[in-house]
């Protein structure tokens, strides 16, 4: 084995990491609190709430329009009856 091989074997030999190495790596991976995830969740929840509110409002508007249309039809028929009755009375 020549000197170069020895140098390489020494350089590439397995070494145990220093104490606390994995902890330091983990800390670097999560340097901030999880505010981003919390904010994202809140945003999704707010968006979902607003979407639901708008959907509910739209459904209510449709129901109201249906009631008004129904009343309009029934009322106009009754009004015609009333007009004809008045016409025959006079």
């Amino acid at each position, binding site marked *: 084995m020549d000197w170069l091989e020895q140098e390489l074997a020494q350089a590439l030999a397995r070494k145990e990491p220093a104490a606390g190495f994995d902890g330091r790596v983990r800390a670097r991976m999560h340097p901030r609190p999880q505010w981003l995830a919390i904010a994202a969740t809140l945003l999704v929840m707010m968006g979902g709430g607003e979407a639901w509110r708008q959907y509910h409002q739209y459904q209510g508007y449709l*129901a109201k329009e249906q009631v008004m249309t129904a*009343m309009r039809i029934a009322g*106009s028929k009754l*009004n015609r*009856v009333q007009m*004809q009755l008045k016409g025959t009375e006079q």
Partner: protein
Amino acid sequence: MRPLLTLALGAVLAATLWAQQFKFNLEHLSSKASHSFDVSLNTSMLQFAAKFLDGKDPDEAKVKKLIVGIEGIYIKSFEFKNEGAYFPADVEKIRNQLKAPEWSRIVGIHNGGEKSNIEVWARNEKGKVTGVAILSSEPRQLTVCNLVGNVDLESLSDLGGHFGLPNIPKGKKK
């Protein structure tokens, strides 16, 4: 356990009431009509809609007041391409569904010039009006209105006048 039981009983009761509501069978006209228009509102839908009616708008305020006693509104209107697309027997089939003694015709108007008929039927149960049916037939249109519950005909007719139709002055009481 108890709230669950109450909820289940409530659901059964609501389903029974829903099933008890009178509805017309108009299948025989669907195939003959070129267009049809359908409004179907049960008690819960009416209650839901009432929340969105604006009390400040005069018409909506009247409707809001009117639907308090109504349990269901079912309207079906058929339009036909040509005159004679439906027969008097088709109308008779509808009329036959309004059986005595519960149902009685309170008004029937025939307009020969316009070839139109309007009939107003009331449903009485134990001396109380529990429903109103309006049957309107014109040469190219047939409309059936079924209002379940306590209906104030005077107010309803009043609304008809507000909705674009001329309202007639009320006659003097003697």
